[in-house]
């Protein structure tokens, strides 16, 4: 999947340390659920992304240290899965399903309307105000509700090109 590229604003403040306080306790609880530390890698990366908005090289190093694997190993896993952001993204990360079942119900029109309503120049590129990053995604598993759009953690069903402006306004 395409990720945020040039034009993405650089983070202005240093990122907080990852596994401290509540996040450390959360990771410790997760580690109890598996027989190996390595198995906590996907959950640990989810914590990192929730806390920092993306998976920075520093976060990969911290995750590697916490789980006793190499940074290169962590990077190999991060780059395999499309939902881990390898670059900072906008305040709202928007995933639009454009696979065939939604595509033939007008998903590409939804993408176009989203780009227009948010001021994003192209897919994967964050809007100039830093608020939006829009990507096409392959099948969101809600094909009966074409077109599904995942805004951050909210799945919005049955989005049409016409309903996009009101939807975007709700998240402004």
């Amino acid at each position, binding site marked *: 999947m395409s990720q945020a590229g040039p034009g993405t604003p650089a983070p202005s403040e240093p990122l907080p340390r990852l596994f401290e306080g509540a996040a450390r306790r959360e990771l410790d609880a997760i580690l109890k659920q598996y027989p190996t530390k390595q198995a906590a890698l996907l959950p640990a990366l989810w914590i990192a992304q929730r806390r920092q908005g993306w998976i920075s090289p520093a976060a990969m190093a911290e995750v590697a240290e916490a789980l006793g694997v190499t940074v290169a190993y962590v990077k190999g896993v991060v780059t395999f*899965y499309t939902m881990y952001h390898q670059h900072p993204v906008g305040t709202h990360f928007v995933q639009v399903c454009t696979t*065939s079942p939604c595509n033939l119900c007008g998903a590409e029109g939804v993408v176009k309307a989203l780009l227009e309503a948010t001021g994003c120049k192209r897919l994967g590129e964050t809007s100039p105000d830093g608020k939006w990053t829009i990507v096409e995604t392959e099948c969101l598993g809600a094909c009966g509700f074409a077109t599904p759009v995942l805004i951050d953690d909210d799945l919005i069903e049955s989005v049409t090109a016409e309903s996009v402006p009101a939807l975007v306004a709700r998240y402004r």
Partner: protein
Amino acid sequence: MGYPHPSHPRETVLLSRDFGDPEARRLDVWIKRGGYQALEKALGMGRDAVIEEVKTSGIRGRGGAGFPAGVKWGFMPKQRTKPHYLCCNADEGEPGTFKDREIMRWTPHAVIEGCAIAAYAIQAEDGYIYVRGEFTEPIRVLQAALDEAYAKGILGPNAMGRGVRIDLTIHRGAGAYICGEETALMNSIEGKRGNPRVKPPFPAAAGLWGCPTTINNVETLAAVPHIITRGGAWYQSLSLSNPKSTGTKLFSICGAIAKPGNYEVTMGFPLKDLLYDLAGGPRPGRKLTAVQPGGSSVPFITAEEAERTLLDYEGCLAVGTQLGSGGMIVYDDATDIVYQVMRLARFYAHESCAQCTQCREGTAWTAKILQKLLRGEGRNEDLDLLFDLGEQMTGKTICVLSDSCAAAVTSAIQKFRPDFEAYLRDGRRAGAA
């Protein structure tokens, strides 16, 4: 029921009874409606009797492969020399399929109960429910239900107060279709890239962390409590066609159809009736042209073929396709089939884990050739090239992702060749001005 539509009298509503009712998510309500009686019963039956009951039911894997679930459970070693594990495959990502999503978000306790019964039967103390990362709401609902089940003592070190340990953990995926392949899913739980493993060994011999593991689809596990409560023989009797396809099945109908949704019917139900009576037929003023009855990975059939297809494993094979996951993609005369087939090829190219050359190169080149065709730059030999590629992509790789791409593309060319030839000849869609 045909959620989000009201139940149709011709449906057989078993798994979908509570779809659309948020009350059903609550443990107290679920128990009042009969929940966890099957787990109670199973724990009193003994492990072998539970497996026998599931074998008798004839239920086959609802994720797409259609392997008999009871037989799969029976493959687990009887003597436990190392930990046994259960996986619930909730990585629903097959385009066209959205049934497990509804099962999890409306009836999370049905999934938990099915998992607990399966875990008990195969002597697993730990089970992992692998939910795709995009399913944010189902994960929230399922986690809340798990928390309630733990608080009530249904799960934990002394599950149901019966002295067995059953722990279930939700493992959130992170965006990879291939993790729905069972061994890729296990790698993903282990904290690895989701590359499918070479088989054998099969999971019952060496699955999670090299230990005996059983993996079942959400819908299969959600049906297990009904099998235990009402008996394998009762479930086995739910069949309109032949004894090899039993029970009810959720069909997720989507694409060019008037009433998309999940419809639950008895195996052997006529596809024609499902499309036209239950799901309302084509959109206004349109005509159906093609159907993929089991998700994007199964061969296309024409609307005429669909009208004589019985919805069960054998009925789909009889018309050259497969029942798959029951995710039914419908196409109509407004659809540019060549373009949509390209989108499917692009999907497989994007989702290939890239381990095997035939898949990595084959899916990418299939998509590129189709894109070239759509630009009006196709050569006459390109269709033959696509068949050639399809042959190289079939039966030669670690998993069946490339086979799926080839099946969809080559069947579409076989069934709708004039549409592809129009692009070759005119550089545009048949009939387009």
